[in-house]
């Protein structure tokens, strides 16, 4: 059983309690225009080009089977993503994103830091991408983790059939699920998907009584207005369970990443909201505890 990931980050502190290892799973079914991890969108392998590292040796051009006129086919329709340019690039200006691992390999990588999970009350967090798109793989890793008593957290956009949740949830200690907008039309505009399935899943998870945290990315000109936040708060307050809300202010530091992927950043000129206390207040009015995350 193999899965496709694009990063395993040790010593993470922002994705759940304690010191954690965050596993970034490749592939997502949403296309949020503010996304911090655009390299997670496609499940297919990708190439990334960091121009500042290029030493101009020309090896990538020689290695590219589809290159012509002194250029590689990178980022063109001809590129077959064979990765030969990246293999030839010793300066690591071109690198491959995404690699396949078996559940056992990934688990042994997670297990390495068990000592600090125990000391700090940490564990593993599956992020992405959308981890639930590789549910079989995820399940296999989770079962291994639970057999070792490792605390597990999941970051999901929630846009998968409930039956997937049903398989996975028994092995998850903490779920972070986003609500980007309570307005379906707006949600479609911002993420490319309807929010109906997401809202349904959240309602069901809430009813199950699990440890669920609602995350709300606050995005300028998308949902950073009272009405949008109120609608979300209204939804959360109507859930069967009580849940903490984390507000994630937008920031544009991922701009460089889009450039290296030759992608357009949909939130190019947007600014980080300066103060979100007003949004916290809206949730407070609904007696929902909300805090601003880093």
């Amino acid at each position: 059983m193999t899965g496709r990931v694009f990063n395993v980050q040790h010593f993470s502190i922002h994705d759940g309690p304690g010191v954690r290892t965050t596993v970034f799973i490749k592939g997502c079914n949403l296309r949020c225009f503010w996304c911090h991890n655009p390299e997670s969108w496609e499940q297919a392998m990708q190439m990334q080009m960091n121009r500042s590292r290029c030493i101009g040796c020309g090896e990538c051009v020689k290695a590219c089977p589809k290159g012509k006129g002194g250029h590689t086919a990178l980022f063109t329709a001809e590129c077959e993503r064979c990765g030969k340019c990246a293999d030839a690039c010793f300066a690591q200006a071109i690198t491959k994103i995404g690699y396949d691992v078996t559940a056992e390999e990934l688990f042994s990588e997670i297990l390495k830091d068990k000592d600090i999970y125990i000391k700090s009350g940490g564990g593993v967090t599956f992020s992405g991408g959308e981890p639930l798109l590789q549910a079989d793989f995820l399940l296999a890793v989770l079962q291994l983790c639970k057999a070792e008593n490792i605390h597990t957290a999941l970051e999901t956009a929630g846009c998968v059939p409930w039956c997937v949740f049903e398989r996975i949830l028994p092995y998850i200690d903490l779920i972070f699920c986003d609500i980007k907008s309570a307005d379906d039309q707006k949600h479609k505009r911002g993420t490319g998907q309807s929010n109906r399935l997401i809202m349904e899943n959240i309602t069901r998870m809430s009813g199950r009584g699990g440890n669920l945290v609602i995350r709300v990315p606050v995005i300028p000109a998308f949902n950073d207005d009272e009405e949008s936040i109120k609608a979300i708060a209204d939804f959360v307050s109507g859930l069967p369970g009580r849940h903490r809300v984390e507000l994630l202010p937008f920031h544009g530091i991922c701009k460089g990443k889009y450039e290296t992927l030759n992608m357009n950043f949909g939130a190019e000129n947007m600014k980080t909201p300066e103060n979100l206390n007003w949004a916290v207040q809206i949730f407070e009015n609904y007696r929902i505890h909300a805090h601003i995350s880093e």
Partner: protein
Amino acid sequence: MNRTEMYKRIAFENGNRFPWYPEECQYLMYKRIAEAEFAQIHNLKRADIECSILDHYSIEINSLELLAGRFSNGFVLTDEQRNIMEKGRGIYEAAGISGGWRNNATGHRVIDYKKLLRVGIKGILAEIDANLEKIDYNSPEAVEKKAFYAASKKSLEAVCRFAKRYYTELIQAAENETESERRQELKRMAENFTHAPFEPCAHFYEALQCMWFVQFCLKLVDDISLTGRMDNYLFPYYKKDIEEGYITEEFAFELIEQLYFKHNEIYCSWPAAIMLGGVDRQGRPVWNTLTYLCVKAIETTGLVNPSVAVCYTEDMPEDLLELCVDMISKGYTRPSIFNDRVIQEGLLEAGVSVEDARYYVHSTCVEITPIACSNIRVATPYININQAFEKVLHRADLNTFEKFSECAKNVAAEIIRKDLTRVCEDMYAQQQYASSPLASAFINDCLERGKDCGAGGARYDFIYPCFPGFVNFVDILAAVKKAVYEEQVLTLSDVAEMCENNFEGNEKWRQYLLNICPKFGNDEDEVDALAKEIYEFIRSELKKYQTSLGGTFHPSYFAWIMHGALGKQTQATPDGRKEGEALSENMGAMQGRDKNGPLAVMRSIEKIDQKYGIGGIATNFRFAKSFIGSDKGKLAVKNFIKVFMDNDCFEIQFNVVDQQDLMEAKKAPEKYRTLLVRVAGYSDYFVNLDPVIQGEIIKRSEHNMI
């Protein structure tokens, strides 16, 4: 601005103004040499010099001081004095004692302050007299013993006379003082000299003054004793004074702050060690109020000195560890944290007694020396084993990696042998010509043996050769293994040529060696196994030799500032390091080569049996302020330290400074005069560092996890 803030400014300026050894001391020393009547035996010569300095050095009392003993500003050499000084210097140099009067172990030892405070100089003089009585004049050692005791006695008496001069000056200053509060303070300062250092100490203030005064005297005679475990020596006095209402915690804290400032005045940025916590000689935990105050004073004084470290044990109080992390998170670079369990095991392994193994200091950077009984030459010499490759790469007969690595080790072994032989010769010369009559009176077992601490009087005579560039050696082996023997993309002579030409025209292959070949510090088993192999190789090589006093050699893995100096002399290396660039400076990854975060660095180094590194192992981590500044970040770092210690790692030290600030400081040093950074085992002001070292610090991987 309160007194502490005002004194901070003065201490910083003084530290930068005074030379390592004040001109007045040099004058008094050479003047004594120039005088006709001069003892023939070197201990007595040295004692005469120590007396000359202590009897005539001009006393200065600053209006902000609560502790006496500082360099004086007023001394200006007259032409006549200069002539005398030059005459003495001529005699001294003509005598051919080029190694100087000083013993190399000076600067890295701690005298027996506990005994000083308990029995006073009076008690030590009585011990000397008793030993003098016991001399068997039929024995061939009688002459040496008698001269040794006579010399120490002379110097000790000079310290007492110097203390009397201080008393008189302080009383005089009190009489001249118009402001009544300050007059009372000066009287109280004088009072500290009525009994101590001659008599035993009774109170905290007196004990702290006594400790500083003797330390100051040693500095004046060009010797050094570091402060060491002050929370342990001073606590009984502090506890009694608090119980009896003789002192307040606030006042004790101000005195500790003053002691810290004074370290900066006389040592400038020489990292003078204070080690806190751990256990005492009987194995009892030391965590007490003074431990907390000594950690807090790092922040309120905020200068480069002292080099404060904490000796971590499993029962270290949680809130104290949190306080340490708080200091680190604010960018003070201290305390560094040492693993008591590992160090005790290592010292026992080296033959140190159980009691002495519990009670050590990190001397300046990370070199472990037992307190009150050591004459250990630390970081002597700095050995650059990477020079082996300049020869080995040219060999044509190394057709397997095993042969290559064997050959590299053989050449390195030869470099080590030559360097150790040279060190033994120096040690022997100093045994003959150097002596420390004053320090020897406080170093065990000099009095018992009737020998100077540099001539076999001290209980421990180890030498700690230091290996900056150790990680380069490992990375080089790993790079050659992959490029030449496994992938066979280059030949050994290709690599030799590239290194000789500093990779000119071969940037592509430099990038290959640098990026594609594995590097130590990333938890990659294959290269980590090479590190373990080389570490064991160095240990077994050092085991082959003995010092001229019969002591053993133990390796150090840090660099002070020598990774820069040795790097300048080292041609480009097959790990992708260019000519002149610094070598690795600690046990962690080579600067900027750790790609998998701090835990991976730890996983790599924990594969090495670090107890054998009592010569000192430093591991540097650099965190962004934004990471460690948050509560979650602090908690993570606290737990990281605990796990680091649980995994038998030796020492951990931190830099918390943002990249931006370092770049700015390099450009506009005048704006960043007190910006502190952790170098390679010690802290220094960033703007005072050599540009190569500055560059290395900027290059270090910053851990800024999200």
